[in-house]
């Protein structure tokens, strides 16, 4: 088999492979490390961390749906200080490349988190998860509000300066994704993560009430893959120079290739890891084989390939 260069970049961060965990789908990384070396994939995107420890939502937190699942975790986590003290050193020790995902309830909280991370060495990039309710605006999700999205990214950009790439993670539950993407890029995002889960609900027909403790949940898995491919394609068409971390139901090398052709520079794998702890490595190997089969020598040749002119 010919050698395929799988390396990719997100802003100024370089990764030897385009495969990442999806935020909230790898816990601290210790569990997946039982099954493969974390350094062998592109990088670990950590669970979104907030200022304080959070216990999250009550159970049931999960419902399997056709080719997917709903989750309602509520950003359970240890808080930024414990995260920096325990989780980052572990991942560095594993020689994993780290993208730290942050989440806040106010514009200020995001900036404060960025300040805490500024002095931590060994981080490749920061993912800003703006799919959180804004407590200062009646709980409206930041990512659904163009102005609030922009202010969050602007605050993070000002705090961390120009070194660490900022990846803004957007929600697909909006009318005009491209305009929100443009807003956060103008505010200083170097890259975009598309897509977060799609809001959904399951009603338990025994209790005749919403099944999840949090009532609504985020839909993930192959059920949302075409939505994700569409979102990545549209945003890449509008801003081809902005790298995208694509995700949503990727479970095979074929799915990863589809997302990359739509315009993603890298892919995150979440729900597939729940069904198969070695999914990320399988996907990476399948992607490499597929690229070789199709005669490509590097991943970069394929990024946005579906957008090429008719004549090519």
């Amino acid at each position: 088999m010919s050698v395929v260069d799988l390396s990719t970049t997100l802003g100024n961060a370089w990764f030897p492979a385009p495969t990442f965990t999806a935020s909230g789908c790898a816990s601290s990384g210790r569990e997946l490390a039982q099954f493969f070396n974390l350094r062998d994939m592109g990088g670990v995107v950590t669970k979104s961390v907030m200022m304080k420890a959070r216990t999250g939502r009550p159970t049931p937190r999960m419902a399997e749906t056709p080719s997917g699942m709903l989750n309602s975790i509520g950003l359970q986590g240890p808080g930024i200080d414990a995260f920096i003290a325990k989780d980052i050193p572990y991942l560095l020790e594993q020689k994993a490349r780290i993208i730290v995902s942050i989440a806040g309830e106010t514009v200020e909280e995001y900036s404060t988190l960025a300040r805490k991370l500024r002095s931590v060495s060994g981080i490749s990039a920061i993912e800003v998860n703006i799919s959180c309710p804004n407590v200062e605006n009646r709980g409206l999700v930041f990512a659904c509000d163009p102005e609030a999205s922009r202010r969050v990214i602007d605050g993070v950009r000002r705090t961390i300066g120009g070194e660490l790439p900022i990846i803004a993670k957007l929600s697909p539950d909006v009318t005009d994704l491209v305009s929100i993407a443009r807003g956060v890029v103008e505010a200083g995002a170097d890259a975009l993560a598309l897509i977060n889960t799609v809001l959904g609900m399951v009603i338990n027909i025994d209790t005749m009430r919403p099944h999840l403790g949090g009532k609504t949940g985020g839909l993930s898995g192959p059920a949302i893959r075409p939505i994700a491919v569409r979102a990545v394609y549209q945003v890449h068409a509008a801003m081809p120079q902005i790298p995208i971390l694509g995700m949503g139901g990727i479970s095979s090398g074929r799915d990863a290739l589809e997302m990359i052709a739509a315009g993603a520079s890298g892919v995150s794998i979440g729900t597939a890891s729940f069904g198969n702890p070695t999914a990320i490595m399988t996907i990476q190997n399948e992607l490499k084989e597929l690229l070789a089969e199709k005669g490509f020598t590097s991943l970069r040749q394929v990024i946005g390939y579906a957008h090429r002119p008719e004549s090519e």
Partner: protein
Amino acid sequence: MVGLIMSSINKNAAQIRASVVSNKRVGQYHQLIINIGDLAGVCKPGNFVAINVGGENSRMVLRRAFAISRVSVSATFGGTMELIVAPHGQGSKWLCQQNEGAVLDVVVPLGKAFGIPTEPVQVLLVGGGYGSAPLFGLAETLNTRGCRVDMLLGASTASKIYAPMEGKRAVNSLRIYTEDGSMGQRGRVTEPISELIKDLNIAVIYSCGPMAMLSAIDEITRGTDVVHQCAVEESMACGIGICMTCVLPVADESGNVSMLRSCIDGPVMDGSFVQWDKVGKAL
């Protein structure tokens, strides 16, 4: 036991392709024997497995967790594990249709095992429905440590009682309770526990079954010296600690309650630390 938590995945856990040695119907359940090779040697009573279901193009994307009821090493099949599966949902129905020779994608062993006393003490095993399955393997282990093992099994009706003949050898006494009175005594399995604790001088209760049963046992043992080791049941998406869906509110020794993963910090937990009244509620 649960107070000082070192949250980490079972260090023996591995993902393997494992073939079905046999699949037999036992009452309302299926007994599956699966070849897991050398991993049988590191499985302990209380551990569980996570199995991919539905085949390659399935619309079921999540792994299913099953308690290991027993492991054995034989000259013919090598190391095998036994699962007792109730064909309730789509995933378990699919598993119950897998016959001899079928190859499964299995992650084994997972979770914390039952703690075994270092001294030969009196123990009581309480099982609800097919939750009794792992208790027979546990009884054998306890027997080898010189513990006197008494067992109570309960279910709504006779066909939901799982009590294999060979399993009974390891127990000193076995009492069965059914809510409809179709087998054993009519009533709930928790009814005689208080009395048995006194009469038999029980030091440890091991339980496995529905959450309501575990919580009822906790109420009985609260304020006593009896240690209650229970195998909890909460729906899981991954079984390996990455999805954060199977959590339960558990207190530490200083009383701080946090949501612990039943796949990593359980399924066996010290019942006195589980905050039964807060299960399913926001903290």
